[in-house]
């Protein structure tokens, strides 16, 4: 009997061990935020807040210095080690009110944060959009994981982001349309919601994964098949290419409830609703897909041009098969592309961007060669803090593809030149 009990316990433990771990959740301020009573900040006012700040309270865990950078609608704070803040802000009686959350990218640590800039501590300069503020002090607090706001937080303005840095076209590209589902973000990877979300993480561009449905419609999805890692549990499972778009639309939801977007819808959102400047279309299929994707790329580039948007959309060429498919397209030499293979292949297909894997090193000679041919060089997919620092300080790349754009953002914007 004791042996039987032992076996039953063993089996129960084995089954319990197969369960998914709990997902991290970013805390929400809730409906009673003070920001409901504030007025939006003008774009010029936001720019005044961009800069390098000294941390005078909250050094543990956020470090000595942080970078503050506004994106389209969020105020982001980048720290040196993978911590970051995403804030909303508004003004009330010359006081800038700030609320949001902080997060650490390498685990699920997160908490609420709230702060303000008093009228005499920068609030007035910000609202007047004074480009040379005398002093900005952001005072507030943050809550440790699972706790209410109780720890003091204070950032003091040190200097603006170097004009030399701002004038560079350095692309901070976020993986899988802006972030990975496995990093427990509140929206799903390769979704329009993620494209909307990612600018708050510091991205200036995105990489998206594209494959074809059974009826030849390019959709955004990373894995080869519909699975519970990326989608909610539903009646459909199997390879994406087995199903038509209408079936995927009605019967599949990404892990946070979004539809699988078509490439066209995703790019249209990028053009119409974001300030992103670069899109890297990563072709996941080995079968020919270029003829379905290139017309959409062309249409969206034209749409961006008509709107006066600065936007580059590159067709990714990750393999010999993709290059063969690409070279079968009429006028391929004029189609903006990104080649992940050697520099000879880049020249052969006239890619605008050369994108080697980061493990091949900084390759300064090759990057200089690309620059001499008026091409760009990006590297992928770089997530380690030390290597990001190495590539930014000692490399010459024009962009970095990463899962952690806030880390790249910190080391890029904090540069003096």
């Amino acid at each position: 009997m004791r042996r039987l009990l032992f076996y039953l316990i063993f089996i129960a433990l084995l089954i319990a061990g197969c369960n998914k771990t709990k997902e991290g959740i970013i805390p929400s301020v809730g409906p009673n935020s003070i920001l409901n009573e504030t007025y939006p900040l003008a774009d010029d006012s936001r720019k005044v807040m961009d800069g390098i700040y000294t941390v005078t309270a909250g050094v543990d865990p956020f470090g000595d210095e942080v970078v503050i950078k506004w994106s389209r609608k969020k105020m982001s704070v980048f720290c040196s080690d993978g911590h970051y803040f995403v804030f909303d802000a508004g003004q009330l009686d010359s006081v800038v009110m700030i609320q949001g959350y902080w997060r650490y990218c390498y685990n699920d640590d997160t908490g609420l944060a709230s702060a303000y800039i008093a009228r005499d501590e920068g609030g007035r300069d910000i609202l007047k959009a004074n480009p040379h503020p005398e002093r900005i002090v952001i005072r507030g607090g943050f809550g440790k994981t699972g706790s209410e706001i109780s720890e003091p937080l204070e950032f003091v303005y040190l200097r603006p982001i170097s004009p030399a840095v701002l004038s560079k076209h350095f692309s901070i590209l976020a993986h899988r349309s802006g972030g990975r589902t496995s990093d427990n973000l509140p929206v799903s990877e390769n979704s329009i919601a993620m494209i909307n979300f990612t600018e708050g993480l510091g991205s200036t561009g995105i990489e998206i994964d594209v494959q074809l449905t059974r009826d030849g419609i390019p959709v955004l999805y990373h894995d080869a098949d519909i699975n519970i890692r990326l989608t909610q549990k539903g009646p459909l499972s199997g390879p994406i290419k087995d199903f038509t778009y209408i079936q995927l639309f009605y019967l599949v939801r990404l892990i946070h409830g979004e539809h699988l977007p078509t490439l066209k819808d995703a790019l249209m959102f990028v053009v119409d609703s974001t300030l992103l400047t670069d899109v890297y279309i990563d072709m996941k299929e080995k079968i020919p897909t270029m003829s379905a994707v290139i017309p959409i790329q062309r249409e969206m580039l034209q749409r961006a041009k008509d709107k006066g948007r600065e936007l580059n959309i590159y067709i990714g060429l990750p393999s010999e098969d993709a290059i063969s498919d690409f070279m079968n397209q009429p006028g391929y030499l004029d189609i903006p592309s990104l080649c992940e293979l050697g520099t000879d292949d880049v020249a052969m297909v006239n890619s605008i961007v050369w994108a080697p894997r980061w493990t091949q090193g900084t390759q300064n000679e090759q990057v200089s060669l690309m620059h001499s041919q008026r091409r760009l060089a990006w590297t992928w997919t770089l997530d380690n803090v030390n290597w990001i620092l190495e590539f930014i300080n000692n490399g010459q790349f024009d962009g970095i593809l990463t899962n952690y754009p806030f880390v790249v953002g910190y080391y890029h914007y904090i540069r003096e030149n």
Partner: protein
Amino acid sequence: MKRTIIINLICLFAICTASAQNNDSIPKTRSHYTLAIGLGWSHYFSNMDLVPARNVQKDFIGTSLRFMWEPEYRLSLGLETGLYRIFRVDSVLTSEYTMDARMYMVPLLLVIRMRIVDNFYLSIAPGLAVQFSQISGIGDKISSTQYSFANFEACASYLYPLNKHMEVGGEARFFYIGKTNDYIMSLNAVFAVKL
């Protein structure tokens, strides 16, 4: 030539030595093989986020087939397969579309079974599963196949010997399919033949 003769002599000695032992002095093995067929009720524990549980048919007839090697010890090893319908989802999506989705599963498992007391066995079985999906009512009728490699089965069996060669009984089985995070259980009547 000399080397060939020596090798042949060594082989001859080895064979003679091996044959010298009296067969009767070695206890005869009582190991045997068993083929068991099961048929019964299977139930799907629906954990679908997208479909209300009321739209999911969960109870079907399932079959199992086991081939076991049973030495004279408590542990025995074998292979198991079968055919289970996991679910059928029948629902109206919009005024334009309905959906009829079905999934079947054929497992292929390595069974490790232990006799706990006379006629009562517990087994665990890791292995792969082939999942077949069919969908109709929205767009073309489509069939799709996928493989799940991280699966696990736990089974309790009672087998009553009818005679020297045949057994009947029942088994309760719990099955986890890793790929789709599906769980099914089944209660089968079993008929086994010792080969």
